[in-house]
């Protein structure tokens, strides 16, 4: 079948029209099959979010930012416990999300602005709300959670660094002195340790001391084991009774006796 020139031109134009629609769908400009709902989310600071930025519910991309505009909300928009600085949210983002995903978006859902990917793409992350909370309806306005101000953090760090520098400059003499003293102290400690390390006598004494300690702990262990035996328990009981019997007698004389005989040493 041979097409006429007009038919060929028509076919070319039709193909282009289809391609244009495909491109439009691909780039998210339009989707005739999509059923979506839209909400308004307000922020004090949007952190670089743009029109077309994705919106994700529970980590899945389900929509995009349709429009961003500035507005002045009335007092009724603020929550009763909001501080005066929290009332004004001058940015309003119109976000559209698919109807299926909107089922999980409740009034207590949180709208975070997050950063993803190698190019640092900004997107809105919506956390699904609780069942108790009512659904967010089409066209409703909610308050988003402002992202952290990295720029502010940097400027505050600069401020802090400036203050530290000021303090150092003001107390330069004291700080230098303290550092010198610290240096001297560490040098002295070092010297002492070296001295200890070199001293042979200290080494032998220390070794002797450790040996004695080992022996003592060995003896104590044996004694404790014996005192736990039936015989030991009986002995201790008898001794306890004996001591209580002796109590009314001359305590000083008894104590002296025990001390003289060395019983205390052996028993305790």
């Amino acid at each position: 079948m041979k097409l006429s020139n007009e038919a060929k031109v028509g076919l070319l134009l039709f193909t282009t029209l289809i391609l244009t629609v495909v491109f439009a769908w691909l780039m998210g400009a339009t989707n005739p099959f999509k059923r979506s709902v839209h909400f308004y989310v307000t922020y004090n600071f949007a952190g670089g979010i743009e029109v077309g930025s994705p919106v994700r519910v529970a980590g899945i991309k389900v929509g995009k930012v349709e429009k961003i505009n500035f507005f002045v909300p009335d007092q009724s928009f603020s929550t009763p416990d909001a501080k005066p600085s929290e009332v004004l949210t001058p940015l309003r983002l119109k976000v559209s999300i698919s109807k299926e995903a909107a089922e999980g978006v409740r009034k207590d859902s949180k709208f975070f602005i997050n950063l993803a990917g190698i190019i640092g793409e900004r997107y809105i992350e919506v956390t699904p709300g609780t069942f108790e909370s009512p659904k967010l309806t089409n066209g409703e306005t909610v308050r988003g959670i402002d992202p952290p101000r990295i720029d502010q953090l940097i400027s505050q760090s600069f401020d802090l660094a400036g203050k530290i520098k000021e303090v150092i400059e003001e107390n330069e003499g004291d700080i230098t002195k303290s550092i010198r003293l610290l240096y001297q102290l560490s040098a002295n400690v070092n010297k002492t340790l070296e001295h200890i390390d070199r001293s042979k006598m200290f080494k032998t004494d220390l070794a002797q001391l450790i040996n004695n300690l080992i022996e003592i702990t060995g003896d104590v262990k044996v004694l404790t084991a014996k005192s736990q035996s039936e015989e030991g328990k009986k002995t201790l009981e008898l001794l306890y009774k004996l001591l209580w019997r002796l109590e009314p007698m001359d305590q000083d004389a008894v104590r002296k006796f025990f001390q003289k005989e060395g019983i205390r040493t052996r028993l305790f």
Partner: protein
Amino acid sequence: MVLYNLILSPALGFIIACRDITFILSRTLVICLKGPYRIREILQHMHSIGVGSLPIVAIATAFAGTVVTSEIAYHMDAALKTVEMIPGFSAQFVFRELGIAIPALLLVAKVGASTTAEVGTMKVTEQIDALRLLQIDPIEYLVFPRFVASIVMVAVLTVISIAITLTCAISVAVLKYNFSTLEYLNSLTHFISYLDLICAVIKGMVFGAVIPIISCFYGFNCTGGAQGVGTATTNSVVTSTIIVIVLDFILTFAFSLIL
């Protein structure tokens, strides 16, 4: 005399050429508004420009898309040690430059040259004078149908060439760099918006308007037989190419302010 030959004469020639081009353009625009619309001629030229140029545009842009994607990937890998951004960069380049400039320059060479040769031959064989004798406006009969057909068909070929180039870029990314088609298309949306396509079509339409006006201007001013036709054709192609490139720069700069 030297001053006249070196500066004044070319400057005067340039001013006269600008005046004539402006006259042809304004007369064509008036006909666009008032008519008569020669639908049959327009369709004939649309076929000649669009359908006739489709194969060369398709082949050239397909290879250009393949080469550019490979080059972007190579340099990205060498400099950044990653090829993750291929979709974004290649798509942006295709939508903003490659898919528009290549068909426009090809059409300058094909359609512009043929138009100048055709109109130039008519001029040297006094057919244009004959048209005037028959009370037929040469601009209405020769320029207007080409003008409309060229604007529509360059825009059409721009969209088609973008689609072909993008398909080849996706093929390279999928076959050579292990991207999936969906992954590519998903990344593409972060870099390209529908405005890019609109700007591309506008650029294509502007280039489409330039080609017949310049070609017909050189055709109308053709003198000296076959050699004159050859010279006029060469000058037409060179001038159109330069104007397309300069306009490309101006439009890119203008669109960069809104994109």
